[in-house]
């Protein structure tokens, strides 16, 4: 059994971030990085399936991202993934999620896993696209926003609950192999143990480029994309009236406002 988990390193902006000179992105010097929250849940889903399978099977984590993204892959190895793949090169810069999906699709084709897990969305840009885009390019069955899953490795179908709006859920059966996008709350992601972290350093982490996957230059980056960021800008601030002062002064004013507006 093999499960492939795609993870994204997401950016958090510093308070004093700046827009890049070409106006098309923020300057990445002003970003802190972490693993996308959703990807913790999808890795955990894979780890639990393996545990329930008598610890049999391989879990491969993959990311498309620059050097820094290696940190997140190592953390996944620390939690129990066996092997990691990082795809990056200059031509990939400027890819939209359809182009990223094309790269991930090639990795899936090469690895031929029984199941692919991705996050519902990435916390930074919230595209909520990549999983289903990969499924389309593979021609595989798929299910999005899965918050419960029954799957036995090797089975020809899985049963999944899709989390809909307002707390409603839909139970579906899905043909396998499949791509599923995993939702927050499906499980309780584990922390890496000290032993796990030590072992992670010795696990394989392959670095490859788009051409290693057989993709041409015009299948990635802007040329391989179906959308283009023309410019980014800081939105006008809302109307919020800021309450200034010491915490005591702020709380006093807040108390007045609450009393007035709640009619108490």
């Amino acid at each position, binding site marked *: 059994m093999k499960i492939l988990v795609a993870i994204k390193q997401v950016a958090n902006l510093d308070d004093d971030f700046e827009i890049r000179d070409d106006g098309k992105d923020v300057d990445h010097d002003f970003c802190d990085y972490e693993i996308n929250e959703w990807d913790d849940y999808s890795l955990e889903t894979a780890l639990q399936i393996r545990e329930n399978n008598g610890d049999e099977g391989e879990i491969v984590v993959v990311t498309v991202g620059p050097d820094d993204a290696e940190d997140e892959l190592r953390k996944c190895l620390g939690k129990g993934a066996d092997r990691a793949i990082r795809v990056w090169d200059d031509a990939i810069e400027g890819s939209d999620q359809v182009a990223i999906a094309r790269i991930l699709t090639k990795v899936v084709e090469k690895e031929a896993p029984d199941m692919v897990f991705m996050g519902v969305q990435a916390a930074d840009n919230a595209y909520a696209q990549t999983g289903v885009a990969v499924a389309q390019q593979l021609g595989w069955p798929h299910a999005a926003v899965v918050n419960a899953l029954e799957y036995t490795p090797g089975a020809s179908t899985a049963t999944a609950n899709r989390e809909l709006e307002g707390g409603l859920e*839909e139970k579906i059966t899905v043909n396998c192999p499949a791509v599923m996008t995993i939702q927050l709350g499906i499980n309780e992601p584990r922390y890496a143990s000290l032993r796990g972290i030590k072992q992670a350093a010795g696990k394989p982490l392959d670095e490859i480029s788009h051409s290693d996957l057989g993709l041409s230059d015009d299948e990635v980056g802007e040329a391989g994309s179906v959308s283009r960021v023309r410019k980014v800008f800081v939105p006008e601030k809302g109307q919020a009236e800021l309450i200034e002062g010491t915490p005591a002064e*702020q709380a006093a004013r807040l108390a007045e406002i609450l009393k007035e507006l709640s009619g108490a």
Partner: protein
Amino acid sequence: MSDILVIAEHRQGELRPVSLELIAAAKEAGASSVTVALIGANAADLTGAVSVEGVDEIVTVPTASANFQPDEWKAAVEALIAARSPSLVMLPHSVDSWGFAPALGATGNYGFATDVFGIANEGGEWVVTRAMYKEKVHAEIDFPGKSTVVVTVRGGTWKPAEGSSSPAVSSLDASATANSSHVEFIEPPATGDVDITQAEFMLSIGRGIAEEDNVEQFSELADAVGATLGCSRPIADSGWLPKSRQVGQSGKVVAACKLYLALGISGSVQHQAGMKHVDNIIAVNTDPEASIFSIARYGIVGDIFEIADELVTHFE
């Protein structure tokens, strides 16, 4: 050409209201004509519900399933695009759309963007606006060389279209092989100890409270100020408060709320889906750039623990 195709969404036999917002958005984007698609075995039953002002044409696409099925919906939209060559196709940015719209984008045949809240036509080219970096930055996106653009549109952005119209109604066939099938819907558990949809004054806590042990302090604060305690999703996912207290897309819409105090909540789109309609939103957050401030009437850039300790003294 600026013909716009709107894909209506429905569930359990009811039109989802966001469909009417999309019709209004299409009109405002300057559509020369608006076609609304009703996809599904019984979707033609909803013809009346989408015959609102601004709709020129309704096309029904009967499919094998009554409920949403991603392969069938994708095939239906592709058949619609082939038949009508719209320049823009709008879908709601909803869970069902997430289940199939990216497959349309991934064909490479159309321009594609998700969670769009601004739509403009510049000399025949569509330019849309969406947010990036946890809503702190907005981006203008275009689609060079694409004659059809597919977008998912953020709910709650446009006021729903109203009134009535008598659009032409026709039907279109599309065939697909379904790779998944509906088993059943599972209703959310009945409301727990409290029905937050009825509360007029909510005090909601988010991940800023940091630890489960801190819930009690805010629960007491809510009692002291006379508010109903609510929360963002991570608090419910962690089991610190029951799911029935969760405000947002997958939780509850606080429909009756007039005053909403958000403590340590960043203001994600999905949280906003449950509360951005509230007239008086007050936010306390250490991050001055948190997007909750963009919808708040009053804001305090500060620590919720410091504010909470002081605030409670005014209600003793």
